[in-house]
């Protein structure tokens, strides 16, 4: 069988574990979802400063003159740059199945409408960040970083998050063909 990956799950998993250790030694563990609020807050502080100040959540992140762009936001910017550079360099070797905006598995189940795919991706994104902010973290902050610190909250998140995702995936593909 042709190799259908760039680096194995072992290589990626060990590197990610080592990166987490390095980050925890240098500054703090990894996290992403807070930065969606920081980005929102920067915009709201600009267009509706009074509202931003009056909102108990947004007012925690930045203010009118300081956007609250710090370590965490630079980390997410770095993810965009690091992902972009590696994909630009390795595009030719990336497995065909992993390219593009219309996954084959999705197409087989839901048809080839791009707007349907984008609508699901957008709606899923709304739920992702609403849920992550309610829980106080996401896959990186809770699962990758929180569980290794043995945080009780992260164990709760890992169980409910994976549980709901598995049930939802089963539901979405309930009459899907075996692949």
């Amino acid at each position: 069988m042709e190799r259908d990956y760039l680096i194995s799950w072992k290589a990626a998993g060990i590197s990610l574990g080592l990166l987490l250790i390095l980050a925890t030694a240098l500054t703090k563990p990894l996290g992403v979802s807070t930065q969606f609020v920081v980005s929102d807050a920067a915009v709201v502080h600009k267009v509706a400063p009074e509202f931003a100040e009056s909102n108990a959540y947004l007012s925690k992140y930045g203010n009118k003159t300081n956007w609250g762009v710090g370590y965490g936001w630079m980390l997410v910017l770095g993810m965009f740059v690091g992902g972009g550079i590696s994909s630009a360099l390795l595009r030719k070797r990336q497995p065909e199945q992993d390219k593009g905006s219309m996954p084959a598995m999705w197409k087989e189940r839901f048809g080839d409408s791009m707007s349907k795919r984008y609508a699901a991706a957008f709606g899923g994104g709304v739920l992702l960040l609403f849920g992550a902010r309610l829980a106080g973290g996401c896959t990186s902050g809770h699962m990758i970083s929180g569980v290794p610190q043995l945080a009780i909250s992260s164990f709760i998140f890992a169980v409910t998050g994976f549980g709901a995702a598995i049930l939802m995936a089963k539901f979405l593909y309930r009459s899907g063909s075996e692949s």
Partner: protein
Amino acid sequence: MTTLVIGFLIGCAFGAILYLGGATSYRRILGTLRLKDMWIIKLMGTAIGVGTLGIYLLDLGGLANMVIKPAYVWGVALGGIVFGIGWAVSGFCPGTCVVGASEGKKDAMATVLGGLVGALLFSLAFPFIEALLIQKANFGSITLASALGVSGIYLAMGLSAGLLGVVFFVLKDKYE
């Protein structure tokens, strides 16, 4: 300034690992969530296994800058459920949609936009749900070690060995 540069560089490595490891791939994510191709759970299990032992070894030397998220049971559990549904529907997480967008995937860009809207909706809802879901049943920043009164390194060794054992010897190549 140094902190910002460190953040940026760690982010670059994080983004590259997620891309290279196939974590931005719908086939891998949904394959794992449908329990058909366990790639992502093996990747995460390995990372958590290595990270747990490493962080608690650092902690022995007093070098771990830990950030323990507070355990407000209802909010975390409900947030996890909403998050999980969004994960299965979009095929991305908050981190992988950023990396997917950097690859030029338009569906990942849609998830980033949705995420910005979702985070804003949460900000608007926060005053109404704080008392009920975040302040209630909030046990603060507790860990398994502090709750059980056991030294963290022993639990970390157990969890690491268990996770790596399951990933490397039980799941292994079963689903590849």
